[in-house]
């Protein structure tokens, strides 16, 4: 399964990963339009943590034993069988926030405009997640465990 690994020694805190995550999950997928019209409605799945000159990008780890799947009371949190990614079916999510309570990495966020959760979906359907593809310093890389 593909995993995103962060190398904190190369992260420059530019946050281009957050920007491109937003664009990738927007309707228009065009950066200017997405920021103009959808910026308030999308919470990027990746978040850059910064303290002094140390920084790194963090998103859902798609854990093998995902606490969020165990805690989800509706069954909205589930594992995608093909990619192994942990996904949230927002049509089933009721915004009870149990997943936020149990994620040890704090990777689940409240949705911006709806009472549902928002988190990294490993850019299902794309070859390379948007954050990885757009990091100017290769601070986040995609590694395939099976390779």
């Amino acid at each position, binding site marked *: 399964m593909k995993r995103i690994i962060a190398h904190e*020694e*190369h*992260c*420059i*805190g*530019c*946050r*281009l990963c957050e*920007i*491109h995550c937003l664009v990738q999950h927007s309707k228009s997928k065009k*950066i*200017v339009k997405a*920021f*103009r019209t959808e*910026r308030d409605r999308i919470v990027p799945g990746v978040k850059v943590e910064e303290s*002094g*000159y140390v920084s790194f990008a963090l998103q859902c780890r798609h854990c093998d034993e995902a606490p969020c799947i165990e805690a989800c009371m509706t069954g909205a949190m589930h594992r995608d069988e093909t990619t192994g990614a942990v996904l949230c079916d927002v049509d089933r999510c009721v915004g009870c926030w149990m997943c936020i309570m149990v994620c040890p990495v704090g990777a689940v966020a409240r949705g911006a405009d709806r009472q549902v959760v928002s988190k990294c979906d490993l850019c299902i359907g794309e070859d390379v997640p948007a954050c990885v593809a*757009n990091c*100017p*310093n*290769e*601070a986040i890389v995609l590694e395939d465990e099976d390779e």
Partner: protein
Amino acid sequence: MRKWLVEPDFLVERDPDRCIQCQVCVRQCANDVHEYDPDEELVTSDSSTCVGCHRCATLCPTGAVAIRRAPLEFRPHGNWTAETLRNIYKQAETGGMLLSGMGSDRRMGVTWDRMLLNASQVTNPSIDPLREPMELLTHLGRKPERVEFREGAPGGLATRLEPQLELQLPVMFSAMSYGSISYSASLALARAARETGTFANSGEGGLHEDFRRFAGNMIVQVASGRFGVDVDYLNNCAALEIKIGQGAKPGIGGHLPGEKVDAAISATRMIPRGTDALSPAPHHDIYSIEDLRQLIFALKEATAYTKPVAVKIAAVHNVSAIASGSVRAGADIVVIDGYRGGTGAAPTMIRDNVGIPIEFALAAVDSRLREEGIRHQASLVAAGGIRSSADVVKAVALGADAVYIGTAALVAMGCHLCQKCYTGKCNWGIATQDPYLTKRLNPNIATRRLVNLLRAWALEIKEMMGGMGINAIESLRGNREHLRGVGLTDRELGILRIKAAGE
């Protein structure tokens, strides 16, 4: 106090239709040009501190930022150019010496561009580098007078050969000290040298212990400050280089400000933390050519004559005499650093007005050594503003055994020649020790870029050689017949010993 006479050099233009206020530019500018106003929800730019490094424009995800020359135009003047006026304004406001980073940017024409190469036609057919083997392999070191053979000897050779450096292509990375450039930059140069099969010069900053594993691809410098020079240093290299001068600032020494001397640099240079690292102009134990000979042989003794010892000199008026003297003093390699050579910091006046271009120096030295019959005793390495594979080919044709690239290597890693290296705020993470900025240079990416550059140049050199009907770099070396001058005076043609185009 505001320096009223000093005007901004650049104008930052932001396209409001494309700016999405993502603030990447705000975060990435080390000179605080961009700022986010949360009330207006706008990113604004103060061009006065912009140095034209393009970091913001490169990273802007929408291409909303453009950097232009500041539009304050002076009345055109052939003598009092905008440049000269700005220099005086700066000095009037500060009372200080003008400082610059990198090599001279003076517009006085580049002699490489006035020399053109030959190509084969009809007779002496071209060689296709994709089909035929092309030899770029280069050996630097003292070559024997003549070779004697004896059966049963190793390789059948009776003559003892002096130690040689073997290069896969005639290009090496020039001396850039760890301290003037970042750890990641130094690491990338060493790794790229290893991967490509060439050498990187440690500069006068000593050798960080992490780089000892690259010893087989390192040339270490013994400069006037003798930073980092101890027995471990001498043992962890492939060759030694005594730095007598530097093309960017002939005649004067070097100065690394104390602020840049952190724990790691202090350990590598073997000076106390926070103290200025001063390299004096002369080596205080070299005041004559005999003194130089003494040092050369001291180093050879210390390394049991297993490593070539090079001498690096700046290209000045009597460069031929000094070169000849150095060879006779025992130097196995003579490095000539020309007028356009780069630096982390030099007084602008010295950088732009002292020394001679490498083309002339190289030709003069090569001719002189041949005349004296000692050309084989030392290899010649040319340095100082080599910009492309074409410059490399021309340099070899003029007589160089190999070239050093400094600026070109930094540019490959991302340098945009803003010439502000001495501020320590290199936005590309190259000429800085600020941990916030050094992160920007990922050594993996930098190494890849350097290896790509050398690979591309090697291919181009082979193409040009093949076009000339040559399949080994040895056949090009000093072969001035392959060069023709355009727009050069008779005198210049004479010194270069090349014909004019048409001849």
